[in-house]
């Protein structure tokens, strides 16, 4: 116990004396959280709030073309600019402007699109009527025409997400216009067949209402946003970077001969390792607290949503403690195995980046390939992230995040065991 306490006290004194290093341990992660959240939030905003400029050439100038144009214009995602039609070659001009990057997307609604749509709808309806009735409409004179056409031109650098957005929007507006035209054609047919005037009051309205809701475990809803996603992810990432100073601390002791001196002391080296783990464990906890505090109090000042910590604070504390323990364990094992400061800093930082990448810190696991989704299961950062998402977004309790807690604890014990074994067998602890 004396060894453990002395080791812990010594580490605390050393840490507090290195004010520059200590500041880095807190300032850098906080800066990381703020910058990454702002960046990711602005990306979301680019999709959600910033309107995507679209160059449109409406050669139809009838119901179909006008409705598509108005639909895109009224959408909150797009800012629609009309291509001048009186130029010599409006189609060529539109293509040129998109190809040059002036616009990412250009849309051409081909001429006669509305007539073709009306004609084809009328043709389809009459075709479904019994022969004697269809003759009433002079069915023989109606021929199916080519489908109305919309051409979309993309700048080669346009992201897939933008392509999907515009395609979905056009499909939606096109379906709406089709339904409207269908309604009008039916009205005119009724008039012709039964001499009945349809009451068009209100016109065609959407019949289905889609409501977006989030499922949580206890019914309390925390609306997911960039802060709710980013703060826990980058908190975990920053906490694991404690491996660099911790591993460096162990290697420095080996290089200065201190470890030699300590290895000549009777008894196990485990209390000395645990002293380091304890100190850096609390550093990790303080890092997490400061980063979560930034999410709660600082990010709203920067115009970002506030981090909501959820209703299961005990689960959050336990999870944070085990993430810190796992990160400290990883630092100890790297410090014990690496032969030099260079080795430990390069391997330590790159391995954390790799574990973060495969663990879903940068890219959500669900959009990874099947193989990468399986690989992500080996990353302790993934276990931690799943735990945080469960607590912060699904309001899960301690029991429900037990798999994450057990995985992180097992990882710590494994790291500690390897470090202890390595220190016991190598030339100097």
């Amino acid at each position, binding site marked *: 116990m004396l060894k453990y306490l002395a080791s812990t006290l010594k580490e605390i004194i050393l840490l507090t004396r290195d004010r520059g290093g200590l500041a880095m341990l807190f300032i850098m992660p906080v800066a990381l959280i703020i910058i990454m959240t702002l960046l990711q939030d602005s990306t979301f905003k680019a999709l959600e709030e910033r309107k995507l400029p679209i160059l449109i050439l409406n050669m139809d100038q009838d119901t179909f073309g006008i409705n598509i144009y108005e639909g895109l214009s009224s959408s909150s995602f797009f800012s629609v600019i009309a291509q001048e039609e009186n130029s010599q070659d409006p189609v060529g001009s539109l293509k040129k402007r998109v190809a040059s990057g002036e616009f990412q997307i250009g849309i051409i609604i081909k001429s006669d699109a509305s007539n073709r749509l009306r004609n084809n709808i009328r043709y389809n309806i009459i075709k479904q009527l019994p022969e004697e009735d269809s003759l009433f409409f002079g069915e023989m004179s109606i021929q199916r025409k080519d489908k109305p056409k919309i051409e979309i031109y993309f700048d080669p650098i346009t992201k897939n997400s933008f392509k999907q957005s515009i395609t979905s929007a056009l499909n939606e507006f096109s379906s709406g216009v089709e339904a409207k035209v269908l309604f009008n054609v039916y009205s005119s047919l009724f008039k012709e067949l039964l001499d009945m005037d349809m009451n068009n009051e209100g016109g065609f309205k959407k019949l289905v209402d889609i409501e977006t809701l989030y499922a949580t475990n206890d019914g309390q809803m925390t609306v997911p946003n960039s802060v709710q996603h980013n703060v826990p992810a980058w908190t975990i990432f920053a906490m694991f970077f404690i491996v660099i100073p911790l591993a460096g601390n162990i290697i420095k002791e080996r290089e200065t*001969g201190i470890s030699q*001196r300590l290895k000549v002391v009777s008894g196990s080296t485990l209390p000395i390792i645990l002293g380091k783990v304890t100190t850096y464990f609390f550093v990790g906890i303080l890092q997490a607290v400061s980063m979560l505090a930034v999410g709660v109090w600082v990010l709203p000042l920067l115009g970002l949503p506030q981090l909501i910590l959820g209703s299961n604070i005990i689960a959050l504390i336990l999870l944070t403690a085990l993430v810190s323990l796992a990160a400290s364990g990883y630092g100890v094992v790297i410090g014990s195995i690496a032969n030099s400061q260079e080795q430990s800093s390069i391997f330590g930082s790159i391995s954390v980046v790799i574990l973060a990448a495969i663990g879903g810190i940068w890219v959500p696991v669900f959009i990874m390939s099947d193989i990468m989704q399986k690989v992500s299961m080996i990353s302790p950062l993934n276990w931690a992230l799943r735990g945080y998402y469960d607590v912060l977004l699904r309001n899960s309790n301690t029991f429900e995040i037990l798999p994450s807690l057990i995985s992180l604890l097992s990882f710590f014990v494994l790291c500690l065991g390897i470090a202890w074994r390595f220190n016991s067998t190598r030339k100097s602890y």
Partner: protein
Amino acid sequence: MDVAIDVIKLSKEYKNTSTLAVDDISFSIEEGEMFGLLGPNGAGKTTTISILCGLLQSTKGEVIIGGMNSITHSDSIKKIIGIVPQDIALYPNLTAYENLRFFGNMQGIKGTHLKHRISELLGIFGLEQKAKQKVNTFSGGMKRRVNLIAGILHAPKILFLDEPTVGIDVQSRKVIMEYLMTLKQVGMTIVYSSHHMEEAEKFCDRVAIIDFGKIIVHGKPNNMIEKYDNCNNLEDIFIETTGRSLRD
């Protein structure tokens, strides 16, 4: 006198090397004796001391310390030995007192006993006024003195010193060597490696000159000087036995 250290046919071969760092050496050191291990750079002194302290495992041979086998009783042996490494094995950002308190705690010493012991030793080595200063503000000689104190805080029966006076001023060396003589007088066995022939000749009861992992000559300094006709001191014997060629 009882034998404190018995080294029997000791060899050490490092991985990926073709030569032996220590090559079949045998010697004994009696209790209360000051034994000098001398030799040029890379001769095998540090390797020998590291094996005796339990920091390295030998390839062949046996080491008995205090009547205990170094492999089977390594933990018991650690309780009776102390080491002063060649490097300044101290935390530069801790004060002298904090360093010594930490190493004392590691040896199981605590409370007022430790406080008094630190105070006593800092006083002996002229560092009492510097106790609360960080080690990184100390001169080389002051650091060497604290380095030595850290190795003797727990009053070991056997003390291993690996070049304890390298790179320090005459005054610091004098204080260190005089205190080592005091320790010897109270019965501590001291194994000491050095390049300082004059120092070894003056303070050691017996010396062994080691080169290429082998003991070339060993015995009492005066007897050795008498034995070599052309040599007037230990340095002459050292040059005579190890040659004049430069070592890496």
